[in-house]
C-alpha cells in the first residue's frame, strides 16, 4: 500500500464516513472540498505522526503540507528524508 493509499483510506473512513465515492483526486484540496474542517486537522496530524513515524511541528501545520493527499505524501517523504539525513 502506498503512502497515498494509506492517506486516502484514512480520509475516507474518518472524514467521509466510509463513502469512497465522495473522495476527491489526490491533488484536490481537502478544505475547498469541505472534507476537512478546522476541527479535523489535528486528527489528521495525529494520523500522520502515528502512521509514518514522523514528528509534525506546529510550524509544519499549514495547508501547503496537509491540504491534499499528494501534499501530505510529499510532506511525509520529506520528513522521513530529513530524519534519515
Amino acid at each position: 500500500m502506498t503512502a497515498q493509499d494509506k492517506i486516502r483510506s484514512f480520509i475516507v473512513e474518518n472524514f467521509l464516513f466510509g463513502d469512497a465515492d465522495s473522495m476527491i483526486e489526490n491533488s484536490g484540496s481537502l478544505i475547498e472540498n469541505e472534507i476537512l474542517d478546522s476541527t479535523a486537522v489535528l486528527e489528521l496530524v495525529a494520523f500522520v505522526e502515528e502512521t509514518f513515524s514522523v514528528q509534525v511541528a506546529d510550524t509544519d501545520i499549514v495547508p501547503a503540507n496537509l491540504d491534499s493527499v499528494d501534499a501530505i505524501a510529499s510532506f511525509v517523504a520529506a520528513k522521513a528524508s530529513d530524519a534519515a539525513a
Partner: protein
Amino acid sequence: MCGIVGYRDQGMTAGNGGALLRAMTQAIAHRGPDGDGHWTADGIGLGHRRLAIVGLTDGQQPMADPEAGLVISYNGEVFNFPQLRADLEARGHRFRTRTDTEVILKLYRQYGADCVTHLNGDFAFALWDAPHRRLLLARDRMGVRPLFWARTPTGIAFASEIKALLCHEAINPTLDPFALDDIFTHWSPLAPRTIFKDINELPPGHLMIIEAGEPIIRPYWRLDFPDATDVAPEGNEDATAEAVLDLLTDATRIRMRADVPVGAYLSGGLDSSIIAALAARETSERLSTFSVAFESAEHDESGFQRQMVSALGTNHAQVLCRNSDIAEIFPQIVEMAERPIVRTAPAPMHMLAGLVRDSGYKVVLTGEGADEIFAGYDIFRENKVRRFCARDPKSERRALLFKRLYPYLPQLQRQNAAYLAAYFGVNVASLDDPLFSHRPRFRSTAAAKLFFSGDLKAELSDYDASDALAAQLPERFGRWHPLHQAQYLETRFLLPGYILSAQGDRMAMAHGVEGRFPFLDHRLVELAASIPPALKLRGLDEKYILRRATRHLLPAEIGKRIKQPYRAPDSEAFAASAAPYIEAALSDAALARTGMFNPRAVKALREKLASSGLTGFRDNTAFVGVLSAQIWADRFAVSSDLNRPQAA
C-alpha cells in the same frame, strides 16, 4: 394571532366544504385555543382558529361585512389599526366591533387589494369578495405569519400550516428533493417551494388574487437598498441615532396594543434588552420577562439576563433547557416545524413559549430582526474581513482577524493564518460572486450532503441550491454596497425561511403564543436600509448606530456586549439519549424506507457520536438534518420517488 384555512374550489359545496374546514381547523387547533369558526358558500370556504388578543368578545371569525359581500379569515395583528380606523371613519365607514379584523374589511372596501400597503403589522389573511367572485390572500412584508397553498383538481386550498392542507384528500405528502437540498445548503426551502412537493408558500410581502383563470401572485413590498454610489460615508450620526430611537420606541409602543397583558423575551443580549427596556417604559404595570437558560455553560446567558432583570425590575421567569430536554422533545419540534431542520435551536424556543403560556401570557415582544437590519450577525463582519483578506491573499497577518470574529469557537483560536485563510475561502473567493458573503456558510452546510443516498443525488442531478437562490436576486442587487448585499441575503431568505418560521412562529404557536417584533416594523426596516453601512458596521463593531441610539437605556455591560449568537447544543444533545425514536428513525430499515440517506455513512456518523462526539460543523449539521428528516418523513407519512417500488 390565530390560524386560518380555506379553499376556493368549484368542486366543493357548502355541505362537503364544512367537513373539510372542520378537519383543517382541527389540525391547527394549537394556533387558536380560544375558539373556531367556519363559513362556506358554493365553491368557497373559510375557516379560523382563534387566539383572542384584541376584541375579546366581538372578534369572532370568519368576519363578514354583509353590506359589501365580504368575508375575512385573518391571522395576525395590525398595529396601526386605531389610526386606520379613524381615517376610515372620517371617510364615512361605520364599525360594529373594536377589532383590527373589521378595519381590514373596511380598508379593502376603500382601497381594494392595495389595502395591504396601509397595514403596519404581521398578518396573513384570506378575504372573499363575493360581488367580484375574488379571493385575496395576503401575507405581511417580513414573513412573520405563515401562509401555504396548494392546487386541488378543481381549485386551491390554503392554510397557516401545511398539516391543515394535508387534510384535503387530493393533497398528498410527497418529498420535494430540491427543497431538501435547499435545507442542506441554506437551512430552508427556497420559497415558494416547501419540503412538500406541490405545496407552496406565499412569499412574504406578496398578494395572491384568485378570480377567473390562473391565480395572480405579485409583490406589494420589496426590501430595497440605495445604490452603493449613492451611499453617504456616514451621514449625520446624531440625527440618525435619534430617528432610530424614535421609530423603535413607536414600533414597540404600538406592539403593546392588546386586550391581554404583553410580556417580553429577555435573552440577555442587546436586542431583547433594548425592547424590554422600551416596553418597561410604556407600561404602568411591572413588565413580565421570560428567558431560557442552558445546562451547557457555552450556550448559557443567565448572568446577563439577571443583570437586565435587576436593571429593569421585571417579573422574571426562566426555563432551564438541558441536553436531555432537547432530545426528548425533538420529534415534537420537527412535527411543529413541518420540515427537516439542521439545528436544534428551535427546541429551546419551544420550551420558552411553553413557559410564557404557563405563566398566563399569550403575547410576547422579542428582539428578533435587529441583527438583520442593523448588521449584527458575525457573517457581516466575516464578509468584511474576507474582502479585506481577498484584496491581499498573500498577507500573513490579515487572516488572523478571523480569530477576533469568533472568540466563542475554541478550535478556530488555535489555527494559524494560513489555515484561517483556507477555511474562510480567501484564496478561492471571487469578489464578483453575488453570494460572496454567504458562500462559506452555504458550502460548509452543503458538505453534509455527503450523507445523501445515491438515489437522492441522482434525483438532484446538477441542481445547485446556491445557484437557485442567486437566481432570485433582484437585478439591482449588484449595485448595492457589499454589506447591504449580505443584509439582503439574511433578511430576505434566512429570516422568513428559518428564523421567523421554524424557530419563530411554529415554536411559539405550538403553545398558542404570539411573538411581536418591533425591529421588523417596516418603517424601521426601511430606515435601517437607508442608513450608511459605516454606521451599522463601524470597523468590526456591529450594530453601531443601534448601540449609540439606545446606550442610555441599558447597563453599560449589556450595551457594549459582543454579539453572542443564539445557539443550542446540537448532536451532543442526543449523545447520551436512549430515546427509542432515534433508533427507529436511523435504523437501516428506516433509512431504506425513506431512501434519502446513505445507511452506511449514517451508521458511521452515529458510531462517531457515541464514541468521541461530533465536533465539526458538517457532522453536527448532518446528524440533526438526517435525524429530523427521518422523523419528518415518518410523522407526515411522506412518500417520494426514492422509496417507491420500481415497476417490474
